[in-house]
C-alpha cells in the first residue's frame, strides 16, 4: 500500500467530512483530494518523473498538506524542509538530493533572492502566495487553475518499496543527512502508531508542530489514514489562541513537545473547557516527571502517551498509559509490529536491568542515508534474516526488570532543544564561518523550557571587537531558528585536552 492511499481511501468513505481546518478555513476530504490530484497532474505535466525529489519549504498550511499528497500521487518523493532554513543549507539540501523541484512561499523566495535561485540547479520552482514572483517561477494558484478539471487521481507510478520521503536530519558530522523512507516504512509506522493511540474517525487532532518535523507530518498522515480531522496551526507562539481553537473545535488529540508542555503548565488551564481532549502525546525529548505529574493533576481525564523515536525509523516506543503513574520516567516498550532490544559494545543482546544501545527492527526502519553508504553502514547493521537491516539508534537506554525502557543519553553529542536535534558541529561550522572567530565549541546546557539550550564558547581573533549580538546575527542568517545559540561566551582561550583538541568536558564543568 502507498502512503497517499490513506487519503484516497478516506475520501471514498466520507467525502463530505472535514479533513483540515487551517485558520478560519476548512476543507472536506473531497476538496482536499481534488486539489491534490490537480497539483499532481500539474507536476507530471511540468516534467516530474517517478522518484524525483521535490522540496517543500512551507509553513504549516493547507498548501503544505496538498503538496505532500500531490508529490506522492505523482510518484515522486517529498522532502519536507523547515521554512526557517536559510539559503546556504537549503542550497545544500537541494544540491545533495538533486531535487527536481522546490515549492516555497513567495515571501521565502523573495527572501532567498533571484541570485540564489539562479545558483541552485532546480528545474521547477512553484511559489505559494500572492506576493510578486520571480522569473521562471510558477504560481500555485495558476497551476491549480490550469488543471482545474484534473480532479481524478493520476495512475500510480511507484510501488510500496519506492521512496515516499527524504527527510534531512542533523548528524554529528555537520552536514545534514537525508533519511530515505519508503511508502512501506511510513505506512507501517503510521499503522503501529494509530493502533497504540487507539485513533478512531471521531478524533480531531490539533497540530502545531512543523510539518517538516516527522512528528508534525505524521499527525496529518495518520489523520488521513483513520479518517479524522486535523486542525493545523502554524506556531505555539500565542498559546491562548491555540487553546481557544482547541476548545472551539472540540479537539481530542494534542501532540506536545516538552517546550509546549512547559508553556501550558505556566497558564491557568482551568479557564478552558478541555473536556473533549482524549489524549496528549510527547516525544522529541523526555517530559520531566514533574510536568507529567502536574498534567495528571490538572487534566486527570486526559491520557498521556510518553514516547520515543527518531527520524530514522519514525517512532520506537511508547509507554502504555496505565503505566504513567507507575513509571513516569519510562518511554515504555516497542510499538506494535516492531522489535526493540538493547545491545552491549559488541552488539550482543542484553537482558532486562542492563544499559546498552537501543536497536530497532521492523518495517518502519529507513532504507539508509541518501548517498552516504558509510554513514548508513554505521547505523544499519545486518539483522537475523538474510539481507535484513536493523537500526542502531545511537541512544543509550536501560531497561527495568519488567523490560520498560529509560533514556540514559546519546552515544554522540547531539543537542535536543525544543524537541529538535541540533548538531553542535553544524552550529560550530556557522560560528567558524565568521572571519573573526578563531575557536568555537558548542555544548548543551539544561533549560527549564527548552529542554537543553545551546551554549557557544568562542575565542575571537586578536584585535577583534566582535560582539555577542553581531555573532548571533551571523548565526541567525545561516541556521534554523532553533539552532541559534542562546548564549555566546567569549574567552581568550578554550580549554584543551591532552591531544590538543578542544575539551568540551571542561567547558561543561565551568559554566559562566
Amino acid at each position, binding site marked *: 500500500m502507498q502512503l497517499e492511499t490513506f487519503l484516497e481511501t478516506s475520501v471514498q468513505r466520507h467525502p463530505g467530512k472535514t479533513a483540515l481546518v487551517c485558520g478560519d478555513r476548512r476543507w472536506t476530504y473531497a476538496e482536499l483530494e481534488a486539489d491534490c490530484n490537480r497539483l499532481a497532474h500539474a507536476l507530471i505535466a511540468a516534467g516530474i518523473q517517478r522518484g524525483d525529489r521535490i522540496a517543500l519549504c512551507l509553513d504549516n498550511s493547507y498548501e503544505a498538506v496538498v503538496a505532500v499528497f500531490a508529490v506522492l500521487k505523482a510518484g515522486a518523493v517529498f522532502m519536507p524542509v523547515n521554512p526557517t532554513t536559510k539559503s546556504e543549507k537549503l542550497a545544500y539540501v537541494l544540491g545533495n538530493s538533486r531535487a527536481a523541484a522546490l515549492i516555497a512561499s513567495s*515571501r521565502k523566495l523573495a527572501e532567498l533572492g533571484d541570485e540564489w535561485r539562479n545558483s541552485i540547479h532546480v528545474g521547477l520552482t512553484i511559489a505559494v502566495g500572492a506576493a510578486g514572483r520571480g522569473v521562471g517561477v510558477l504560481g500555485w494558484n495558476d497551476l491549480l487553475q490550469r488543471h482545474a478539471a484534473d480532479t481524478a487521481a493520476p495512475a500510480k507510478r511507484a510501488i510500496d518499496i519506492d521512496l515516499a520521503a527524504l527527510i534531512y536530519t542533523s548528524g554529528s558530522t555537520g552536514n545534514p543527512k537525508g533519511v530515505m523512507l519508503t511508502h512501506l516504512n511510513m505506512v507501517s509506522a503510521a499503522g503501529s502508531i494509530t493502533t497504540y493511540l487507539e485513533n478512531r474517525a471521531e478524533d480531531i487532532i490539533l497540530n502545531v508542530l512543523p510539518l517538516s518535523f516527522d512528528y508534525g507530518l505524521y499527525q496529518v498522515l495518520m489523520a488521513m489514514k483513520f479518517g479524522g480531522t486535523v486542525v493545523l496551526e502554524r506556531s505555539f*507562539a500565542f498559546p491562548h489562541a491555540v487553546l481557544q481553537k482547541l476548545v472551539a473545535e472540540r479537539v481530542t488529540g494534542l501532540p506536545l513537545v516538552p517546550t509546549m508542555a512547559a508553556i501550558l503548565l505556566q497558564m491557568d488551564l482551568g479557564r478552558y473547557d478541555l473536556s473533549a481532549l482524549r489524549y496528549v502525546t510527547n516525544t522529541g525529548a523526555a517530559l520531566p516527571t514533574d510536568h507529567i505529574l502536574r498534567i495528571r493533576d490538572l487534566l486527570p481525564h486526559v491520557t498521556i502517551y510518553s514516547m520515543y523515536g527518531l527520524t530514522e525509523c519514525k517512532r520506537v516506543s511508547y509507554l502504555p498509559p496505565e503505566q504513567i503513574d507507575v513509571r513516569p520516567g519510562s518511554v515504555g516498550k516497542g510499538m506494535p509490529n516492531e522489535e526493540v532490544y538493547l545491545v552491549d559494545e559488541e552488539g550482543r543482546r542484553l537482558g532486562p536491568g542492563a544499559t546498552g544501545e537501543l536497536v530497532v527492527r521492523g518495517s518502519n526502519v529507513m532504507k539508509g542515508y541518501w548517498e552516504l553508504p558509510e554513514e548508513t553502514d554505521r547505523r544499519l547493521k545486518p539483522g537475523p534474516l538474510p539481507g535484513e537491516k536493523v537500526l542502531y539508534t545511537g541512544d543509550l537506554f536501560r531497561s527495568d526488570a519488567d523490560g520498560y525502557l529509560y533514556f540514559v543519553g546519546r552515544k554522540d553529542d547531539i543537542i535536543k532543544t525544543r524537541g529538535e536535534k541540533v548538531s553542535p558541529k553544524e552550529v560550530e561550522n556557522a560560528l567558524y564561518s565568521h572571519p573573526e572567530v578563531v575557536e568555537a565549541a558548542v555544548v548543551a546546557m539544561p533549560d527549564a523550557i*527548552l529542554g537543553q539550550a545551546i551554549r557557544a564558547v568562542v575565542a575571537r581573533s586578536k584585535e577583534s571587537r566582535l560582539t555577542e*549580538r553581531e555573532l548571533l*546575527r551571523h548565526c541567525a542568517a545561516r541556521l534554523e531558528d532553533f539552532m541559534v545559540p542562546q548564549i555566546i561566551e567569549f574567552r581568550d582561550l578554550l580549554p584543551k585536552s591532552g591531544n590538543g583538541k578542544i575539551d568540551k568536558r571542561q567547558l561543561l564543568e565551568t559554566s559562566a
Partner: protein
Amino acid sequence: MTPLESIRGFVQDNFLFGEEITFSDDASLLEQGLIDSTGVLELVAFLEEQFGIAVEDEELAPENLDSIDNLMLFIERKTPACTSGAPA
C-alpha cells in the same frame, strides 16, 4: 525614550540581533518568522518589566503582540497615562 522607540529597540535587539528594522509597524512578526513561543515569553517579560504591566494568559494573542502597532495599542490600553504624554 518613547514607548515606540523602546519597543522597536527590543524587536531590533532580540529578534533581529541588531539589524535595522525594514518592515512596517503593522507587519506580522509571526509571518516574518521573527517570533516563536520562546520569543513571545521574552517579549512578555520585557513588556512587564519595561511598562510595569501584567500580561494575562488570554492576552497572549496576535492582536496584542504580533506587530509593533499592536504592541503599542496593547500598552496604551494597559497604561493610558504613560503613552498620552499628558498628565493623568
